[in-house]
């Protein structure tokens, strides 16, 4: 079974990742543990999030924390970072028993964390966001220089004066990482750090992380990408349903074995049919030119493509190259276009229609931001399901909400996409990121749209669930839907798409059949036009491989 597809070995190999040598200090046991957790238990109403978890992190060690969505990884690191208090168990830091009362205490101890959902202030500038995490008395002018220097050294380009609300997810993550690096931590916790990076960015991040580890700092690395864990991490702790089920050496354990430990059974990888797709074009974009809404956005320049019946078209690219603008233009969230014929949905001019009207024409949309755009946090899952599905599925009766049918539909999504929730009446905010994503994707797919536009379909979703979403997208296309996937995850695009185009600086390359392009080509196209300090080294390595 081609399990490797869903964990992306090809990309890892082509990126030139090699398992690095075992950490000698840790192996010889010469080094005392930096952080030790003993029997940590955390209960939430109706759920045991951490069940007697033991964990040891040593200096200079990169330890992976592996587990499915809802396995308790985020809860565990929140306890370490002082955001949650453990119900039972002991925490030892540098040999001393400690109580981590809050994040401020954790940071004073030398623990820094990059969050999966970023803890950034949207209306403030990059510099202000970083200043807030610095000790008192930090001079803003001096900090600006340090930010510029660190962001250049680590290949994380940042403009300190930019406002965060104008930035994409990938760019925001750079702020978080730079903010942590500036704190000079002993233990750095990263929650899914590479999920929104290009291969080149990931390579440069990995060399950064290795350098940090060589300096004697420890890293706790949460990721679903097993090949990355194999390439980067010295040790791995596998969590399942809140318990530690295994400790392993990722360089000696196969990705498949680790995936089995995580999920309990083998994940299915997406299988693509190779039938001919020559049906009619359902979604057409023709000469779409759009000035950015603000000075920090990207102008879209003369974008043209078509998505045929039964086809999956992938648009690759680094965040901030026009993805947000393109998604807003396609979904109708943005301002009406000058030319209504720039976007044709089933042949109908849709350029000046709002999102609801476009949905009525047969399109469905899954935006990148699952919290602000994809769901209403304070509403229940059945209410969230109703919001986009009521017209197509007829979930109303005499103008009122048909509760039983709405609940039935939400139940169908929850069951069909393995959403871990307490029920259809759970609030959207109570779901973990990956589970919410599964719910939102499932909600759109089960409406059987004729066109589906989906951005970052598996961001923050674990390998098993990602494979399920990929399979659902492929099956949907087989049933005749035109699917447009906007993603930064090249593995994903190569795994499911029939054709690929690259969005760079607001311009879209000519879509080409997936068999006709290599990861290198696409990666360089994505990153090469981007202002990346680390390109030469990575590019050189890739060229020699290619």
């Amino acid at each position, binding site marked *: 079974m081609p399990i490797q597809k869903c964990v992306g070995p090809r990309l890892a190999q082509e990126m030139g990742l090699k398992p690095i040598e075992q950490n000698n200090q840790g192996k010889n046991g010469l080094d005392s543990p930096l952080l030790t957790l003993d029997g940590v238990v955390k209960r939430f109403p109706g759920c045991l999030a951490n069940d007697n978890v033991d964990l040891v992190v040593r200096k200079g060690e990169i330890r992976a924390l592996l587990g499915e969505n809802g396995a308790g990884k985020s809860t565990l690191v929140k306890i370490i970072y002082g955001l949650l208090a453990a119900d039972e168990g002991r925490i030892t830091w540098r040999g001393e028993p400690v109580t981590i009362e809050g994040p401020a205490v954790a940071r004073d101890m030398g623990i820094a964390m990059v969050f999966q959902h970023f803890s*950034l202030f949207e209306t403030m500038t990059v510099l202000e966001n970083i200043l807030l995490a610095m000790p008192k008395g930090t001079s803003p002018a001096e900090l600006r220089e340090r930010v510029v220097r660190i962001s250049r050294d680590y290949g994380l380009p940042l403009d300190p004066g930019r406002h965060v609300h104008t930035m994409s997810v990938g760019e925001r993550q750079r702020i978080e990482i730079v903010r942590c690096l500036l704190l000079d931590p002993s233990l750095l916790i990263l929650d899914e750090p590479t999920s929104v990076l290009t291969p080149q960015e990931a390579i440069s991040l990995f060399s950064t992380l290795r350098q940090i580890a060589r300096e004697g700092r420890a890293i706790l690395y949460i990721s679903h990408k097993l090949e990355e864990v194999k390439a980067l991490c010295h040790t791995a702790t596998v969590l399942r349903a809140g318990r530690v089920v295994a400790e392993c050496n990722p360089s000696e354990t196969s990705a498949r074995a680790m995936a089995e430990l995580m999920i309990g059974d083998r994940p299915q990888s997406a299988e693509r049919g190779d039938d001919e797709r020559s049906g009619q074009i359902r979604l057409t974009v023709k000469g779409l030119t759009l000035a950015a809404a603000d000075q920090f956005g990207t102008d879209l320049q003369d974008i043209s493509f078509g998505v045929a019946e039964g086809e999956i078209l992938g648009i690759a690219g680094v965040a901030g190259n026009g993805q947000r603008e393109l998604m807003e233009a396609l979904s109708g969230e943005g301002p009406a276009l000058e030319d209504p014929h720039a976007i044709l949905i089933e042949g109908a001019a849709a350029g000046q229609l709002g999102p609801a009207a476009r949905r009525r024409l047969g399109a469905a949309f899954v935006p990148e931001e699952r919290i602000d755009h994809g769901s209403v946090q304070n509403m229940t899952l059945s209410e969230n399901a109703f919001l986009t599905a009521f017209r197509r599925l007829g979930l109303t009766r005499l103008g009122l909400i048909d509760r039983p049918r709405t609940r039935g539909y939400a139940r169908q999504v929850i069951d069909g996409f393995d959403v871990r929730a307490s029920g259809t009446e759970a609030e959207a905010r109570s779901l973990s990121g990956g589970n919410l994503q599964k719910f939102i994707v499932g909600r759109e797919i089960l409406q059987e749209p004729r066109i589906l536009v989906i951005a970052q379909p598996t961001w923050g979703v674990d390998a098993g669930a990602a494979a399920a979403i990929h399979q659902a997208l492929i099956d949907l296309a087989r049933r005749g839907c035109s699917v447009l996937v906007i993603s930064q995850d090249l593995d994903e695009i190569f795994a499911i798409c029939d054709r690929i185009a690259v969005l760079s600086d607001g311009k879209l390359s000519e879509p080409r059949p997936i068999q006709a392009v290599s990861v290198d080509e696409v990666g360089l196209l994505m990153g090469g036009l981007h202002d990346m300090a680390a390109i030469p080294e990575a590019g050189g390595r890739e060229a020699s491989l290619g």
Partner: protein
Amino acid sequence: MSDISWLVPVILTVITASTPLLLAATGELVVEKSGVLNLGVEGMMVVGAVAAFATASSTGSAVLAILAGLAAGAAVASVFGFLTLGLVANQVATGLALTIFGIGFSALIGAGYVGYALEPLPKLDIPVLNDLPFVGPILFGHDALVYFSFAALVGVSWFLYRSRAGLVLRAVGESHDSAHSIGYPVLRIRFLAILFGGAMSGLGGAYLSLSYTPMWAENMTAGRGWIALALVVFSTWRPGRLLLGAYMFGAITILQLHAQSAGIGVPSQVMSMLPYLATIAVLVAISRDATKIRLNAPGCLGKVFHPAR
């Protein structure tokens, strides 16, 4: 100079009419920037007014009276802080209750003081400067609270946009979860902001009962707390516009009074509406840029903070 000398008393009354609004609104600006919506400004003002008047009439000390106004406003605000932050009560309902409570409570305290009058607060009196024609009385002829209201606004602007503590306060108002996750004590910062807002409202009330009309009358704030609240929102949380709004409101209030006494043929009720309409119209007109509003509005305004969700 004699041809414009009639303007001097008009400008002086405009300043006295605007000062209590400016004081209370400056306090509420800080509160809202920290993410808390305290609708109890009116209640805190009126309690500050009665406390200041009672202290002034029993001790005769203006300094003690002003301090009493500050303390009374802060005390009422601390109740609000305890209920909304400590017991996680709804901010809107608690603020409204605070206003109703303040009006009733001040009437009870002030029952024995109705009908008495006080000497107004001493004016700054600088011999030579004060005798300058026109600019003398306008620049140098006020009591200390007027100067303080300007100093407080400048100080608050500096604090919010130039100091680190102000950045932290804005961060708490923008996203309390993010601020919490990088280690700031959200509830303590908000409580301090609420206390400051209460003290400034109390001071605004004290100005009314000590200087504007140096006497006590039941419900003497007459809705000024609500105007101060509205000014904060309509100024899109920007100090400069807050000053503009407060003075515009004060100016039109006074000018329409003069117009009424001059006997122009417009119903007095319509004239009384003018300050409200004009202030709102101007502030709405200058703040139509949605991006700017989004940049200045506190993201978590009025939202309840649940740590460790």
